[in-house]
């Protein structure tokens, strides 16, 4: 073993999870190396997206003073699109959203976080791929990069959704297509004034927009739109098995979303700045990998810690990174890096919102996969059909229209479908509240 290359902890992956872990360790005066394969942190990362103020403050309390932020989100829109029409709900609070969010560009924001970590003593190694983990008596003792080997007492795997490293030591099974969503995204330059006009915003106020249906009717997928300073991020995520089974190309789906009559005016005359793609872990609580073993901890997307219904991932990543680092500090102080001590990390996660939330939604994806035609097509269209009926002035008595609408819910499909939906709904609610 080369003692020159030995540190307390090696963190693999300079995303939010890895950076949060590394900086927490540096603050406890531990020697920590953070290895990132991209030219810089953020250069391989893609998200919606919005980062959440409160969890970031747990790691970078003053981030609002100097981090590259795009807009402070004051508006949350939800639209249900059918082929032609749509229904939209919007929650708006321009004064104060105490636990709010900001839109960011990952190539800038992750890079900023990594720079902060560096200033606090993290040794950052960029443009370096960790190829494999080094094992001794089945304990993880270091990593092999393309150029050299690094040794440490503990390795934290923050290498993102594909985590080839967690898989290499059997902490997780190979991911199934149904347990990830493939996401494609476009950043479209529109100009600050136009964005403010189109979304009814002032200055640096931002809008988060979730989109159901449209080209994804009957498909397990969700669209998103976020306002940046002078551009818009628009994209969608679709369960990978759906693309395979339905023979759909992801970018063609996005083109259809962009052309929908409700969406098209928002991005009109925009210029494509960058196209990108990334996977999202969707397996949830039931697909959690093993989170620790001798000498190793798994955090963030590598541990599949994403709350997909709420588009939350960076927060689970950062908090899991922080909790893993705190566990590592305890282990280092005890000079015991065994799974036994590192299991504290799982306990900490269980006591935090991270695993509590994943547990709350543990049945959500199963229900959605099972009943997708109902919940992601039939009822979505029905909402729009209701409003179409409600606003149509056609000399038909209102009472008849209401009765016909209610009847249609029972006659559109086999009555057993309605029964199954009800049962799934109750089961889901029961699993959320029990």
């Amino acid at each position, binding site marked *: 073993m080369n003692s020159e290359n030995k540190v307390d902890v090696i963190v693999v992956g300079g995303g939010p999870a890895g950076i949060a872990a590394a900086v927490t360790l540096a603050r406890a005066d531990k020697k920590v190396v953070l290895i990132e*394969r991209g030219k810089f942190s953020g250069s391989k990362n893609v998200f919606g997206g919005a980062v959440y103020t409160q969890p970031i403050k747990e790691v970078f309390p003053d981030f609002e003073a100097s981090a590259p932020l795009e807009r402070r989100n004051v508006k949350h829109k939800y639209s249900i699109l059918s082929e032609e029409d749509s229904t939209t709900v919007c929650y708006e609070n321009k004064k104060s959203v105490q636990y709010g969010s900001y839109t960011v560009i990952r190539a800038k924001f992750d890079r900023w976080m990594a720079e902060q970590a560096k200033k606090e003593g993290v040794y950052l190694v960029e443009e370096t791929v960790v190829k494999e983990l080094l094992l001794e008596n089945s304990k993880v003792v270091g990593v092999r990069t393309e150029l050299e080997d690094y040794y440490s007492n503990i390795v934290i795997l923050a290498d993102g959704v594909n985590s080839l490293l967690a898989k290499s030591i059997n902490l997780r099974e190979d991911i199934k297509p149904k347990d990830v969503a493939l996401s494609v995204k476009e950043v479209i330059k529109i100009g600050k004034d136009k964005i403010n006009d189109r979304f009814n915003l002032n200055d640096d106020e931002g809008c988060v927009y979730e989109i159901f249906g449209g080209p994804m009717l009957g498909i397990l997928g969700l669209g998103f739109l976020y306002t940046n300073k002078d551009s818009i991020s628009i994209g969608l995520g679709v369960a990978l098995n759906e693309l*395979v089974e339905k023979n759909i190309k992801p970018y063609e789906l996005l083109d259809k979303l962009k052309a929908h009559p409700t969406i098209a005016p928002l991005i009109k005359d925009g210029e494509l700045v*960058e196209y990108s793609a990334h996977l999202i872990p969707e397996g949830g609580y039931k697909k959690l990998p093993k989170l620790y073993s001798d000498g190793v901890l798994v955090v963030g997307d590598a541990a599949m810690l994403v709350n997909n219904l709420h588009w939350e991932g960076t927060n689970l990543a950062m908090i899991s990174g922080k909790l893993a680092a705190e566990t590592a500090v305890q282990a280092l102080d005890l000079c015991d890096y065994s799974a036994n001590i590192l299991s504290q990390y799982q306990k900490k996660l269980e006591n935090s919102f991270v695993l509590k939330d994943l547990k709350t939604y543990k049945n959500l994806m199963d229900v959605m996969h099972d009943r997708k035609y109902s919940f992601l097509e039939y009822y979505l269209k029905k909402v729009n059909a209701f409003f179409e009926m409600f606003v149509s002035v056609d000399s038909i008595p209102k009472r008849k229209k209401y009765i016909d609408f209610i009847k249609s819910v029972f006659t559109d499909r086999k009555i057993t479908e309605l029964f199954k939906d009800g049962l799934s709904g109750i089961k889901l609610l029961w699993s959320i509240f029990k």
Partner: protein
Amino acid sequence: MSIDDKLSTVKYTSDIYSHLNPDNDKCLNCQSKCCTIVCPANVYSWDDDKKKLTVNYENCLECGACRIACEKKCIKWEYPRGTKGVTFRQG
């Protein structure tokens, strides 16, 4: 807008080696050729004359979808070397 136009907005540093290596013997018997469907960068196409999967690895966005979706689980899938591959400027 064509996928090539979309990809022209992405910054790449190409390597001379492919980091994506499907086992063509398995591809020959693959029914779905689903890598050609799911890939967001249109990296894969099936050449019916040569009976070979063409891999434009230079366009890869490094998402990992093909590895997971591959019908035969036969893609030797690696990250490009540290200085190579995609560099998102937005992300």
